[in-house]
């Protein structure tokens, strides 16, 4: 079904000619609010993914996550954020033309035949933090960071994707929803139902992803929202007024089992391959009190990134191994909302 025509001007392309600017080769996935196709940008032969958002399906018009995704991706141009190449409409459907990213970090973490060197982990963490830093300096919170939203380009670059839950850092008097971020990566202030929070929720997620990269298994896999609190505090200690002033005023803070904070030795045992500096950074990103958690700037300037080994060049990072069945090839690009 590939169709062709000439290149027309970017961004505000008229509906009529745009369908001919890209080929839509095959459908690779279908979610509740979008269908994803693989295709090619005719003029550059560049591989692309077209996310066709079903409008008219929602009784309230354009879907909120579609609005968010378009709104924020239009503003965020960065090597570590998925590129929104174009937006166009076909018969009242919204089409997002995104760069083609064949794999994601979750796929690699789960593939036990691949060995992660500590320099590889450093490289992925660095790219994640750079992307997050770019969001935060534009006053945008991602609010759904997890390994399968960290997509990998053929050249090894890591790209933050799925901005369906993102939002601008609100005014201080504005309430935010605490029901964000996929459970295992949800910061304690969100678990406690905080209505005001900051970029620290994203940093927590990155910290948990860092831990998962080292462990090769989810660090805090709670079975449900209640269990998530238990799992989190068993690993990192139950927050008290001493270490987190005013924590007991948060809506969901009650009847907690009290676990002591882990000793340095316990963490060393759990993350046996981590250097002292890696452990320092992990601890800094997973501080229970969000105001003590490091921000993206101080994380990027952390000594961990200065000590040997140097982060692996993106194009030398481990890649997904070729699978025999081509039908599985695109698993990573198919995004289904988990919330």
């Amino acid at each position, binding site marked *: 079904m590939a169709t062709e025509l000439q290149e027309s001007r970017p961004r505000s392309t008229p509906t009529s000619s745009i369908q001919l600017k890209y080929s839509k080769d095959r459908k690779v996935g279908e979610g509740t609010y979008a269908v994803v196709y693989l295709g090619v940008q005719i003029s550059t032969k560049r591989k692309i993914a077209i996310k066709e958002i079903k409008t008219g399906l929602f009784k309230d018009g354009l879907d*909120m996550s579609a609005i968010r995704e378009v709104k924020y991706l239009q503003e965020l141009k960065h090597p570590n954020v998925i590129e929104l190449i174009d937006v166009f409409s076909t018969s009242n459907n919204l089409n997002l033309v995104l760069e083609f990213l064949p794999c994601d970090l979750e796929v690699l973490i789960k593939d036990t035949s691949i060995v992660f060197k500590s320099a590889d982990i450093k490289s992925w963490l660095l790219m994640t933090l750079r992307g997050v830093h770019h969001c935060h300096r534009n006053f945008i919170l991602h609010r759904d960071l997890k390994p399968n939203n960290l997509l990998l380009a053929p050249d090894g670059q890591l790209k933050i994707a799925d901005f369906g839950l993102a939002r601008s850092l609100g*005014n201080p008097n504005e309430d935010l929803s605490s029901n964000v971020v996929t459970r295992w990566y949800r910061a304690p202030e969100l678990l406690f139902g905080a209505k005001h929070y900051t970029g620290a929720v994203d940093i927590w997620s990155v910290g948990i992803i860092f831990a998962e990269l080292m462990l090769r298994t989810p660090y805090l896999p709670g079975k449900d929202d209640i269990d998530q609190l238990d799992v989190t505090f068993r690993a990192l200690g139950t927050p008290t007024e001493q270490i987190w002033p005013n924590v007991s005023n948060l809506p969901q803070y009650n009847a907690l089992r009290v676990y002591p904070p882990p000793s340095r030795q316990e963490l060393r045992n759990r993350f046996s391959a981590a250097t002292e500096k890696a452990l320092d950074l992990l601890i800094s990103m997973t501080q229970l009190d969000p105001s003590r958690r490091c921000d993206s700037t101080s994380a990027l300037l952390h000594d961990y990134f200065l000590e040997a080994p140097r982060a692996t060049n993106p194009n030398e990072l481990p890649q997904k191994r070729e699978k025999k069945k081509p039908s599985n090839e695109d698993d990573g690009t198919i995004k289904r909302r988990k919330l």
Partner: protein
Amino acid sequence: MTEQEKESENGRTEEVPKKQYISNDDLYRRSSQFELWSFTQESLEAKKKQANEIGRRIAKQRFDEAYNKLKQENPTIFEIHKQELDANNLITLLSHEEETKFIHAYCQNIVQTADYFRMPTQVKLTAISLFKKFYLENSIMEYHPKNIMYTSVFLAAKSENYFITIESFISRLKDVKQEDILDLEFKILESLKFTLLVHHAFRPLYGFFLDFQAILLHPSPVMYDVSIDTLGSLYDRAKKWLNEYAILSDVAFLFTPPQIALAAMYAIDRRITERYLKEKFLDDHTVNLESIPEHNDDVKEEDKDNEALKASNESSNQREYCITLIRTIRKCIKLSKLDNPTPEESKEIGKRCKAALNPDKVIERRVKKLAAPTTTTTNTTTTTT
């Protein structure tokens, strides 16, 4: 560090070029608001003219179709009343100036609608912004502002996380159907070139409120008659000023949000704002900023200032910077004051807008009127007898 030291250090580090520091201004310059929706006065005017021309073309076409259809249906009347039914005399299309006036007046309705729904300021501001951007691409002679206004409010509410269901939105409005809004939502998004993030002047205004305190009150008060209360009331009045003037005018297309915010402070209290700028940018506080002549506040002068800025040394650079800034915000204040249409003028434009949108009704009415006199006369005669 002196200039020479800086240079020599730069010389040493030449081999390993340091990554350029990215300032907030750099980030702003990459925003869609700056890239797609910021204009000079001339380019904004041109954009409006272009939208108006498209509108005129569409309205003309629509008129011609209706005219020819009715002419075919009523050949005799068109023959008898050639002059009354002359195509050139039936409707007068709107100029781009008239469109602008009408759109600005309509923004007031957005404010009322948003207030009626008790929506946060952010939603109100974004709705106005979406509405105005729509009419940089389209004409009111193609899309009547009423439904575009409601749809802008509905879309802005979603975009600013203040979701309201279509039913509850509709149920509190008069004469609007669900599909009126849902059908237009997409069209608006398209006209916006799919950009939704809007930076407003209120956040930077709050920033200036804090910085005024830091600069003018700490560690000790700089002006004997300026206290935290003075600044608090200045801030409140500046907010009001933004609501009253800036948000309805076109300044958001011409200036950055911090410039507009500073203009609001300056419009309310020139003395305090000038002192703040002096304290912040100038070592020599005796420089008399008030002496900047008003009549020089135009673009050409600014260009000259920029030249001077490059040529001169650090301290006079700062002075020039400050002067350029003041000129810019003065210009912003000037352009915030709208030439609002009178109610009669508004009504007249509204009428012509409707006529352009529904030429068939205008022509039909005229045809009926011309065909009717006999019946009307008989009617009158019957009542009088």
